[in-house]
């Protein structure tokens, strides 16, 4: 495992393990205008009510509370656009929270907007979004803001984009139903996985975890399964020796999760060869090979499909299967489509943790 250290121009050291490090960014008012109508926090409920009054053609729909928490102002507009896309497929009360704990003086601002889409040509179905900018706030302030503006009785799904640092504390996560993370964004995955495991094992940590880095390999895993579907290939599983994964720069954790899963399923530790590319999809190819047996899942840059090629002795099988989605909004939508819990990811975390050591 390589771990390099880089120093930026200001002498700040950040630990890199091949993951994406988002640059800090400054906010300007024109960006904030895109969040909708600025509203005093104490008047949000009244403002939302006014938003719906007087337009009978609109139907308000909501199945979940979906909150995005970020501490990077450079993410704000992308997150705003993402919520627009996600709400089109998953009716929700959307909360966008940008916390800047170091900013001074402390202040809190809020915006509201309706996320609407046409329905059957005549009606408009809308979800509502509340955006917060919390400067100089602390964990208690974040909790108060989130809990005060939930659509009651609906599940709370939180995409925690920041490190699982001081604001991710017990009183918050004890109320979360589903926690979305993207471990490929973490600067220090080992430390963050530790924090995640601590929260998951806490008495009140009953939330489901959905890691977008894990979701990125969903169809690749399905495709790999099809390589080893027939009896001849299954008989040769114990001959597999090496995993080769080609991934996009910044998706090292995505590749490691995939490798950890393979080892966990095979109950062994295969040799691992990671190849990093500057462009292309997050996961570009996966090859499992050993003497007389080989399974390959490959994706061309422009293709929506994986080419699957399985060879066992003289027999070769090829097919085309759907490839994984790459964009954040598609990944989040994919996760929200699968609400049923799975222990697979949490079972695999110890394997990943050991690979990161």
């Amino acid at each position, binding site marked *: 495992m390589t771990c390099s250290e880089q120093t930026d121009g200001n002498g700040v050291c950040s630990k890199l393990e091949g993951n994406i490090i988002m640059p800090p960014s400054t906010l300007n008012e024109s960006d904030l205008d895109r969040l909708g109508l600025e509203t005093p926090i104490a008047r949000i409920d009244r403002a939302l009510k006014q938003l719906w009054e007087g337009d009978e053609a609109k139907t308000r729909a909501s199945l979940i509370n979906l909150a995005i928490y970020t501490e990077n102002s450079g993410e704000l507009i992308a997150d705003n656009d993402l919520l627009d896309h996600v709400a089109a497929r998953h*009716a929700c009360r959307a909360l966008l929270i940008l916390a800047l704990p170091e900013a001074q003086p402390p202040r809190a601002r809020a915006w509201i907007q309706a996320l609407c889409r046409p329905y059957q040509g005549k009606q408009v179905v809308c979800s509502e979004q509340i955006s917060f900018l919390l400067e100089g706030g602390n964990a208690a302030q974040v909790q108060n803001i989130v809990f005060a503006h939930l659509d009651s009785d609906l599940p709370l799904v939180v995409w925690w984009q920041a490190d699982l640092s001081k604001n991710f504390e017990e009183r918050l996560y004890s109320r979360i139903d589903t926690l979305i993370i993207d471990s490929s964004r973490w600067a220090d995955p080992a430390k963050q996985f530790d924090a995640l495991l601590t929260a998951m094992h806490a008495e009140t940590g009953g939330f489901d975890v959905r890691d977008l880095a894990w979701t990125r390999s969903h169809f690749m895993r399905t495709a790999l399964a099809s390589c080893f579907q027939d009896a001849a290939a299954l008989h040769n599983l114990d001959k597999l020796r090496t995993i080769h994964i080609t991934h996009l720069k910044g998706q090292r954790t995505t590749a490691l999760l995939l490798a950890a899963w393979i080892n966990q399923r095979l109950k062994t530790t295969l040799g691992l060869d990671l190849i990093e590319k500057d462009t292309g999809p997050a996961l570009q190819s996966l090859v499992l090979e050993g003497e007389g047996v080989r399974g390959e899942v490959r994706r061309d840059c422009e293709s929506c499909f994986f080419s699957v090629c399985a060879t066992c002795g003289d027999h070769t099988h090829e097919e085309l299967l759907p490839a994984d989605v790459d964009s954040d909004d598609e990944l989040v939508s994919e996760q929200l489509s699968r609400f*049923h819990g799975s222990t697979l990811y949490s079972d695999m975390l110890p394997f990943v943790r050991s690979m990161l050591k």
Partner: protein
Amino acid sequence: MSELENPFQETLLSRHRAEPCTVVIFGATGDLTHRKLIPAIYNIAAAGDLPPQFKVVGFARRDKTDEGFRAELEEGNRKNSRQGHNDELWGSFEQCIHYHRSEFEDPSGYVQLKLLLDKFDQERGAPANRLFYLASAPEAFKPILEMIRAAGLNEGVGGKWARVVCEKPFGKDLATARGLNAVVAETFEEKDTYRIDHYLGKETAQNIMVLRFANSIFEPNWNSRYIDHVQITCAENLGMEGGRGGYYDTAGALRDMVQNHLFQLLTLVAMEPPTDLSADSVRDEKVKVIRALRPLVGPEAVGKNVIRAQYTAGSVDGVPRVGYREEDRVNPESKTEPYVALRLMIDTWRWQGVPFYIRVGKQLPKKATEISVHFKKPPQVPFATTKLLNDSANTLVIRIQPDEGIALRILCKQPGQAMSMQQVKMDFRYSSSFGKASPEAYERLLLDAMAGDATLFARRDEVENAWKFIDEIENAWHKSATPPPMHEYPAGSWGPKEADDLLRADGREWRLL
């Protein structure tokens, strides 16, 4: 881990991926294959749920090459695929499609088919499962099944299974259904027989069980103590377009819709909770409902409880429509009913005294299928003087199609000084709440058949008991000396006046859709 388990597949159970399989479609040049089956299989492939090393073989009489057959199917898929058509995917998908020309009654055609399937197995390096889909005209089912058996295709190879999927209609009366079931039973075991009813593949039909058994507010009230009556409506705003009059005039609404689709909905609404969600537990409870239907024997009982009618000339959405007997390929002297309304009683503890009203018809004002559960009125004591109490019953509406969803009608106090009440509707719509489109019914059902889940398919006893009930009505109409009359309604209306009278006699009325 057992020797032959795929360790990678094991963790992906939620994706419902079946084992390698060849599907043989009999009657592959027909409309169903082009409009429904191939687009369904293509969409399963697009979702990545198709079994690996999958093959589909079209079996039909016309002379075609694989390439010609694929080109025709591609055209159909472009028009009918739910998720659109992707050339790259189709280019790969079509390689699994093959065509086999043969007469249905020609034994050598089945020998050749067996050789073809064996060749596919050799290419795979291992035997695969085989699913035979009977999409031909129903009269061809018997010879096809006999030939499948004669060629030994009904036996799985190398530990793999062979199954059959039968399209509706499954018989045209009890005798033919029993005859067909006997032929099927000689060829396939019941566990390998899948009688398809595409209504059961609809999301909202499957949701009926969830609504009833997973919500504690409904099931305690789901009985004769709280429910006044239930209505099931299947309205179509079309007539006999596209030459369908030829088949329809030999069937009628009772055989074509009630015996299968509407009885399936009825059983889902009326069944007792199954002990688990296994296919037989669910189907055991469903068949009990059919068995408990109070028989309508003789013309008098049928006349009192069943209204049949034909439409006369009228208009739907402002477009003039001819009468049923003037339709293309319909006998001008036809005695077939494009409309039927029934009052059914289910003689169980739960449903004692609760009528189930069913109506289905062509050339009605709109296309809609729904179930409405009408609850009893409250005691009324505190609001005895309020005028609106005449219409105070709660109604739960389950919309099957279009605009799938659930609506609950409740009474609320109108704002103001007076104690005035108004009906309001709480409305849940699948498409507003779940942006993701539901799979087509055939996608779900084909995957289930490949995966061996028969829950959403009709069992032999279910089909035969339904026909037994329907036959009594057909006999009263067509074999008695004093048959109940055939009524009329203008195309574009909500059916004959006599159907309204059927409910009015009970102090009720049809729900306005």
